[in-house]
């Protein structure tokens, strides 16, 4: 599998590979409780009130005394050599306090800018307006070089030679089974090309940083998916001890992967300008910079030849795939997706282009692999006149706790009214056609350490659970409280979660849907230990064995006599002036990997205008033990909506002559709004015996394919590329009619 090699992955993750069932925890007392009082319930998001009132301080909202504002000067050219950078006029401008050259001028390859938006220089001034003015006064001289933004030209060898080691990187061929025998067993074969486009993350809060030096110590506020990784990034790049860097991120306005792996040039430039000026500096990117320079989802394409037996088994799959992740980054994706095909071969090429580098984007590679495989699957199903649900059931891996597609497909088909679906092409008269589609997904989402949790219980009954993690908007703060409260027999609001600060300890970066599965076990362990310590304090008072005490309903009491015990506050009075303070870490047995999900979509298509309206979505999704029901469901809604944007609206459009992005904003880079929402039903499956598994990514995988297949079902025209704009739908229908004629 030529998957993203940039994404941290827990072992055992993959497409449909059976994962080991959750093993027992080190000590049985840490096991998840069989009766759960707070876990899995609909606890209101902890930071709701702070966010709806505007009190929540994001990096963008950090205002420090004497703070300056920085601005990066970026290349307008997709490929050029920087021959001179003159900061003089900028440094003389009103309010300007400093500046730096990021891309040194010179004759070498390293003196080149490789994409529109590549960093060249930066300035810092008293106000943001002054910084923007000054950035315009920085005089950069470029020797413009031939650029490459056309993937087909790169593959055909007709593009200018741009990249030192070649414009195209051929990956290894992956092969298993006997392809010739597979095609020999096929009753029908299909040869088609499928492709998906580049989209960008569009986090509503842009990438941004505030840096403030105190002597040789650096305080950083940064919109990041990994505060501890950010600390390492800053210390390494600035050649200083990690002990001297503190990173905070209390609230962040989305990341979707683009804020996971590195603080980027933008983070380091902020720290450098703060050091140069001796003042706190804020550097927030604007929307255009966001689109150009800080990540995107790579394109993906595959020329596929596949064979299907008369009874609907995919017997052979032979694919050449490619994609572009920009100026030097890989563009891998899993192919074929999920389906079990005994005889297969796949070769992949990464195509480098003079565009911004990809960064992991929500379920890296999976939406692309899913689209290509699922559209192919429906084409094969039609060749053998088989229902798409039955076709999937026949070709998916065997049912297992981490591979529940068969059950979910049957349940979903029933609930969605799949039996009312017509064959490909709505036979009714009139211009509005209706169709349904279905697709499946998987994701790993396991946990790992170190993920330290620190629990304190004070004599006034306060409970603090402190974890050096961060909340992308998924609800981490709420999850911390839910896990602790359930263990301590308290309502969630009695726990004070503290996160978002490297002073709180070490926790993994939030990527690959691993946060919940990493920190929940650590919190559970810390809370169990803290409760044990409290029992030790209280047992002598009650004159009982500590092991006979349990905590439920806000009381610490005898297991078999709820009346014999103390209320939480009373019990905690026996703690004394020194709070109970214990630590926990992730350990195996409380989390596992690999989820399954299915989604059904229904659309109407106006065949005269090509306008698609998404009318209904049903999602069935598991994530092991459901920790926090409201926030978990919200993740599924969000995943669906992210994917419908990918399917129908978003598109990074490049000018074919200049190589520049023509829609680096939010009015021509389209995103769905309230009126574009379909009816949505989310069925979250609880699998408590498996422990915690992440849910951020899987629900954003199958929606796009399900929608494209619904359009196919409505119109009879196969949508083999995205997004499903009116023009693309009309073109597909016209080609279909030409073939029929």
């Amino acid at each position, binding site marked *: 599998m030529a998957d993203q090699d940039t994404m941290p992955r827990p072992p055992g993750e993959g497409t449909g590979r059976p994962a080991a069932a959750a093993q027992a925890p080190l000590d049985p007392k840490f096991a998840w409780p069989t009766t759960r009082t707070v876990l899995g319930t609909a606890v209101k*998001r902890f930071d709701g009130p702070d966010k709806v009132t505007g009190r929540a301080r994001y990096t963008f909202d950090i205002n420090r005394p004497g703070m300056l504002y920085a601005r990066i000067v970026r290349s307008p050219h997709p490929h050029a050599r920087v021959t001179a950078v003159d900061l003089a006029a900028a440094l003389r401008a009103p309010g300007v306090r400093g500046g730096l050259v990021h891309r040194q001028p010179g004759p070498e390859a390293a003196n080149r800018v490789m994409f529109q938006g590549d960093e060249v220089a930066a300035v810092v001034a008293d106000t943001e307006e002054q910084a923007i003015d000054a950035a315009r006064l920085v005089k950069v001289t470029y020797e413009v070089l031939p650029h490459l933004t056309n993937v087909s030209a790169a593959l055909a060898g007709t593009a200018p030679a741009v990249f030192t080691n070649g414009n195209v990187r051929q990956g290894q061929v992956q092969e298993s089974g006997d392809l010739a025998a597979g095609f020999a067993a096929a009753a029908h074969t299909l040869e088609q090309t499928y492709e998906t486009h580049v989209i960008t993350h569009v986090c509503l809060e842009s990438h941004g940083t505030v840096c403030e030096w105190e002597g040789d110590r650096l305080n950083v506020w940064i919109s990041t998916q990994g505060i501890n990784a950010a600390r390492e990034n800053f210390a390494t790049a600035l050649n200083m001890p990690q002990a001297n860097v503190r990173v905070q991120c209390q609230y962040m306005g989305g990341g979707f992967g683009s804020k996971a792996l590195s603080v980027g040039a933008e983070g380091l430039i902020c720290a450098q300008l703060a050091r140069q000026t001796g003042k706190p500096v804020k550097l927030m990117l604007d929307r255009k910079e966001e689109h150009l320079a800080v990540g995107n989802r790579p394109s993906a394409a595959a020329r596929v030849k596949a064979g299907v037996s008369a009874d609907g088994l995919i017997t052979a799959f032979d694919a050449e795939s490619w994609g572009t992740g920009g100026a030097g980054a890989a563009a891998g994706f899993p192919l074929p997706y999920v389906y079990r095909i005994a005889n297969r071969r796949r070769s992949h090429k990464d195509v480098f282009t003079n565009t911004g580098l990809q960064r992991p984007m929500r379920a890296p590679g999976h939406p692309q692999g899913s689209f290509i495989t699922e559209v192919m699957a429906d084409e094969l199903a039609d060749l053998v006149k088989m229902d798409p649900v039955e076709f999937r059931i026949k070709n998916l891996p065997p049912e297992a706790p981490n591979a529940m597609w068969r059950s979910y497909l049957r349940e979903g088909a029933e609930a969605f009214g799949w039996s009312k679906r017509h064959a490909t092409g709505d036979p009714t008269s009139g211009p509005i056609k209706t169709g349904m589609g279905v697709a499946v997904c998987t994701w790993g989402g396991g946990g790992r350490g170190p993920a330290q949790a620190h629990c304190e219980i004070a004599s006034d009954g306060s409970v603090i659970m402190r974890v050096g993690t961060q909340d992308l908007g998924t609800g981490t703060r709420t999850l911390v409280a839910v896990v602790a409260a359930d263990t301590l027999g308290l309502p969630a609001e009695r726990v004070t979660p503290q996160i978002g600060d490297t002073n709180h300890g070490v926790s993994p970066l939030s990527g690959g849907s691993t946060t919940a599965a990493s920190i929940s076990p650590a919190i559970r362990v810390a809370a169990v230990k803290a409760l044990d310590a409290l029992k030790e304090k209280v047992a002598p008072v009650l004159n009982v064995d500590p092991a006979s005490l349990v905590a439920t309903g806000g009381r610490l009491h005898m297991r078999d006599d709820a009346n014999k015990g103390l209320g939480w506050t009373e019990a905690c009075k026996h703690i004394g002036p020194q709070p109970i303070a214990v630590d926990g870490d992730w350990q195996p047995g409380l989390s596992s990997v690999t989820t399954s999900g299915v989604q059904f979509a229904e659309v109407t298509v106006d065949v005269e205008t090509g306008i698609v309206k998404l009318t209904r979505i049903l999602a069935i999704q598991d994530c092991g033990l459901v920790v926090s029901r409201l926030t978990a469901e919200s993740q599924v809604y969000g995943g669906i909506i992210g994917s419908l944007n990918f399917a129908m609206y978003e598109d990074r459009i490049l000018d074919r002559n200049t190589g520049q992005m023509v829609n680096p904003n939010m009015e021509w880079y389209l995103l769905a709004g309230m009126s574009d929402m379909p009816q949505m039903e989310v069925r979250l499956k609880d699998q408590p015996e498996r422990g915690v598994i992440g849910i951020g990514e899987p629900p954003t995988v199958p929606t796009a394919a399900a929608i494209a297949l619904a359009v196919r079902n409505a119109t009879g025209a196969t949508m083999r590329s995205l997004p499903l704009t009116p023009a693309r739908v009309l073109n597909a229908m016209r080609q279909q009619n030409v073939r029929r004629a």
Partner: protein
Amino acid sequence: MAPKDDGVDGINRSRRRFLKSTGVVGVAASVIAPDGAAAQTGPAAAGPGAVPVRLQVNGRQLDLMLEPRVTLLDALRMRADLTGNKRGCDRGACGACTMLVDGRPVYACSTLAIAVQGKQIRNVDGLAQGDTLHPVQQAFCDKDALMCGFCTPGFVMASVGLLEQHPNATAEQIRKGLDGNICRCGTFPRIFEAVSSVAGGRRG
């Protein structure tokens, strides 16, 4: 001023939908600079340096020295530390900056501070009464109508503006009224639920 042309009352066709369905390409709006003659006969030009600007924000008077080009959003965020409303796109497309000016939702990123002197400005920082949330804020919390929360202040203000004009807003009015705001995390179904629960209980 940048009123949000969501067409709740008037033409039943929002700006977003119009752009999307037609794919119109071209100059959406052209900025017309005053020529020399007009500049001489018109009011004296302010700036380019900082000028005194008096704003009425959340019922309080705010005296600031601002360059005339400073937007209402930036004035409040960077000069008055009222950071509740956010800047997502800076071009009147995402709605995170939505504030109420004389009761009308406006994109504060595309509204000059100097142009709204003498008007009643409300941003999200002033909406709650102490610890008591506005019913719209409470509904957002109850329905989990937020994730990262960066769009939330804009959605809350747009919803408040909508419900003040249409206390019994229909489902269609709610959809149209909030079409000028983007949530990237994808909380729309729950925002709809939240606003519907405040809107006189009318659903459908």
